[in-house]
């Protein structure tokens, strides 16, 4: 009887694990299944490179891919130096109370809902950008990237701090013994050995920026065309899904959102594998 209970428990645990992992595959399967008719017509890769021209029967998602790329990349450009400075402050430079307090604050910042970043972005930052550049409505790539950059900074900073924390104690003690100041320790000991971990942080933050929906949807303007400057509005893949979903179930426009879904899925999968690969490479080296 006891043995039967044991087996039942193990089976239940195994089943839960299998069920949860099969969801990962089920999501991809659903995307492919629903997007198949459109892909059969045009081919998956052509869809990625074709322009969006519904009246000519072309449902390529090239403008959305460019929009996603531009907004995410620009947000990284803003977030990277900011996160670097903040993680320096937390990791080595600040006095002890500042380091702890600042870390708490940043941990708390990861809990601010995305929709609130978007909400404040619309009513505070958009008018400022509109007045500053005197062009368009203020709903543009630049505004979205600024807000998105602010949103991913805490995540990136915490990843950087984690990679600083993983450095062997003996390295730091050696630097201390040689009379290094905190800055010197940071620049010549911590930073060189934390490079890989920091790269991980950047990649994961990029994944988060690409996957975010609300900020781009609320602030980037959502125009379907290839943007020419950072003051142009743009539509991201995620926002495209959110905007088109209300349409008729069987229309080709509707099918195009599954192509977007597949692209996003494959991208995050690539991010995951890259991070895993880097992690394994690091593990081997040590």
């Amino acid at each position, binding site marked *: 009887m006891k043995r039967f209970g*044991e087996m039942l428990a193990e089976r239940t645990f195994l089943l839960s694990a299998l*069920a949860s992992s099969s969801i990962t595959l089920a999501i991809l399967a659903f995307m492919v299944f629903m997007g198949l008719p459109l892909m059969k017509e045009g081919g998956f890769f052509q869809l990625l490179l074709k322009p969006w021209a519904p009246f000519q029967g072309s449902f390529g998602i090239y403008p959305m891919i460019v929009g996603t790329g531009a907004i995410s990349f620009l947000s990284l450009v803003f977030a990277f130096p900011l996160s670097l400075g903040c993680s320096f402050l937390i990791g080595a430079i600040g006095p002890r109370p500042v380091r702890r307090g600042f870390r708490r604050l940043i941990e708390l910042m990861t809990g601010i809902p995305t929709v609130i970043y978007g909400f404040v972005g619309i009513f505070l930052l958009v008018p400022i950008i509109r007045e500053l550049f005197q062009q368009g409505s203020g709903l543009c790539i630049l505004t979205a990237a600024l807000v998105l950059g602010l949103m991913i900074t805490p995540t990136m900073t915490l990843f950087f701090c984690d990679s600083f924390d993983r450095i062997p104690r003996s390295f730091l003690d050696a630097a201390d013994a040689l009379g290094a100041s905190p800055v010197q320790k940071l620049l010549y000991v911590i930073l060189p050995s934390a490079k890989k971990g920091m790269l991980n942080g950047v990649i994961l933050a990029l994944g988060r920026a690409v996957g975010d929906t609300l900020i781009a949807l609320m602030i980037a303007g959502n125009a379907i065309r290839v943007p020419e400057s950072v003051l142009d509005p743009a539509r991201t893949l995620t926002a495209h899904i959110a905007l088109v979903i209300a349409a008729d179930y069987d229309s080709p426009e509707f099918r195009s959102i599954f192509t977007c879904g597949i692209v996003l899925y494959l991208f995050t999968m690539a991010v995951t594998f890259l991070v895993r690969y880097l992690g394994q490479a690091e593990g081997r080296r040590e």
Partner: protein
Amino acid sequence: MKFRTLEGLTVLFSWAAGLLLLSAVSLLLGYLLIKGYQSVNLSLIFGDASPLRAVLLKERVFDGLFPAIAGTLVLVILSIVWAIPVGVAAGIYLAEYAGSRVKKVLDVFFDVLSGIPSIVVGLFGFSFAVFLHKHYSDRIGPCLLISSIALSILVLPYIIRTTQASLEGIPLDLRLTALALGATRFQNIFLVLIPRSLSGIMSGIILAIGRCAEDTAVIMLTGAVASAGLPHSLFSQYEALPFFIYYISSQYANPDELMQGYGASIILLLLCAGLFSLAYGIRKGLNYWAFYRP
């Protein structure tokens, strides 16, 4: 000399970045609180209805946030109810039963799952609803049930990972004591390991609750609408706080509605900040004594 300059610049740069982030966050939160604090009062939540009668479901609330708050609450509870058993069980399997090869494969799956953008999970939920609608019943469309299932998929990796990590963090001697006294594997897990790692598991669950409460992308695809009243069945559409904020930001008709948006934002912010502080607090405070059985 050159090194000195570099070092000096680094210090300057770090403080500047810290101050910049601090001022950006204070600006964000300060703007929200200063513009919106006046709107936070009982009539924001209950409109013209009397609070007590509204909570007892005797009176409908028309121009208040009560339906949205109730919707979010029901949604979070449902999602967590689906996610906890499966997530904790999968975490236990990963930490205690899986062989190293199986673990490696499952690890990859859960890593991918945790990286999938929430809008894609929402799209999955939506197409699942369409699938059910076509093949099983006309009554099923995007609804509370579908939303809660999709949200539970979104937070499943959090619960699995925190469960796994806190189980794996238990030192070996504690692991072996009960086994050496003749306990079975299952008894060891339930009477020793789980109570011991409860604080870790709880903090993961609370983070998952926070994620469910704030997520907008999933619910806007799977059944959240601007006005539906209180959620009355699993198969009905519903209102939710984050969706309300999004909706107001793009569709507000007059300053009063906008003020409601500010009020809703403050409520959601306080809710999520509270949950986060709780999760971080619990990880330190709560320990296995809470569920200690003599």
